[in-house]
């Protein structure tokens, strides 16, 4: 009985400690952001590996998510004779929910895991310690550009995802299902609001970018410097990011849309 209580207490303390370390870590990284202004090439390199290399999976999934949404939405809407509203359905679901969330999940799998593995291996091979020996702050030099790159990339990727999804839905809707292209766009434009839908989706994706980047770099920085530790940290990045993104999305949706 006491042993059970001790185990609960230990795991609670451990997770609270992790949360505290992660917060302090984030604050230190934010304080070190000034370095990035002086060395923008660090950011460009990370934007390439975090953003550009994720583009392929985002483009392909965006197209297919849009196409599937169009098919499924059409079969439901046609029962009510409302297939002209297909554009509204697709655009609202993509801008409000699917765009930011699916992009963040894919981002966690593609870029977040890579970030964790990279930083974890740097720690395991003592490159981070070596940098500190040379009086180079790894938090400014290694962590900050990666965090900012995630923060910038995710909203951009989400916008591309949403646009391609709508494009895919348009192609499927007009060519395969016979929805009128004109009313597809005009009903969409009449119902989708920039401030309520597009802007809220953008805010969501910025927050998801911060969360995904933060979890990824922290797990890499905080991992056990062994091969098993790096592997566990990578898995944890994907799992924790996915759960946090889904939970945060619920909270944000409840706050944003009434």
């Amino acid at each position, binding site marked *: 009985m006491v042993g059970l209580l001790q185990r609960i207490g230990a795991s609670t303390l451990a997770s609270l400690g992790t949360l505290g370390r992660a917060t302090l870590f984030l604050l230190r990284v934010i304080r070190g952001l000034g370095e990035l202004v002086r060395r923008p090439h660090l950011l460009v390199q990370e934007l390439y590996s975090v953003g550009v290399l994720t*583009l392929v999976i985002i483009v392909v999934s965006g197209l297919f998510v849009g196409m599937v949404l169009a098919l499924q939405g059409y079969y439901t809407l046609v029962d009510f004779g409302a297939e002209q509203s297909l554009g509204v359905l697709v655009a609202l679901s993509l801008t409000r929910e699917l765009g930011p969330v699916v992009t963040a999940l894919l981002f966690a799998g593609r870029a977040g895991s890579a970030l964790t593995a990279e930083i974890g291996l740097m720690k395991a091979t003592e490159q981070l310690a070596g940098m500190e020996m040379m009086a180079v702050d790894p938090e400014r030099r290694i962590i900050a550009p990666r965090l900012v790159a995630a923060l910038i990339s995710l909203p*951009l990727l989400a916008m591309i995802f949403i646009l391609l999804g709508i494009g895919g839905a348009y192609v499927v809707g007009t060519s395969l299902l016979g929805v009128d292209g004109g009313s597809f766009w005009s009903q969409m434009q009449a119902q989708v609001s920039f401030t309520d839908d597009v802007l809220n989706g953008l805010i969501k994706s910025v927050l998801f970018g911060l969360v995904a980047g933060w979890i990824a770099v922290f797990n890499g920085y905080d991992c056990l410097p062994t091969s098993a530790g790096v592997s566990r940290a990578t898995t944890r990045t994907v799992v924790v990011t996915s759960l946090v993104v889904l939970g945060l999305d619920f909270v944000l949706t409840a706050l944003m849309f009434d």
Partner: protein
Amino acid sequence: MENSRSMEIVVGAFVAAGLAALFVLAMQVSNITAFQRADGYTVEAYFQNVGGLRDRAPVRMGGVPIGRVSGITLDPARFEARVELTIDARYDDLPSDTAASIRTSGLLGEQYVSLQPGGMPDALEDGDEIMLTQSALVLEDLVSQFLYNQSGDDGDGSGGSE
């Protein structure tokens, strides 16, 4: 150095593509220009029933969108719905006895406010009230009226198919 240059180009293209996507979403999908046009004037109209009319629904005259619904509230004194219509400043010469009615585009389409011009010489101005209004058609009322007088062909019935 060549390598970092091409990387910078690719990153630039990525950022540009993302921003362009946001721009297209703003312009093409949500039509930001149509409802942000603030240079209009606002008139109000009281309806007994607005049906499914919503904020930002179009205001049309002769089928042409000339404004947007900018607010729907219940007037606590009259127990009628007070609908604010913001009309584009280009159309500042509408007769003061213009009539407003709530219509539906298509059978299941969105509802909009349709304006029919009157014949008075003076124009509607900011803050004016549109006196002649026709409420939204409520399907249940229509059905119950139809059931009351099975003979059918009365004025309300033909008003629905207009």
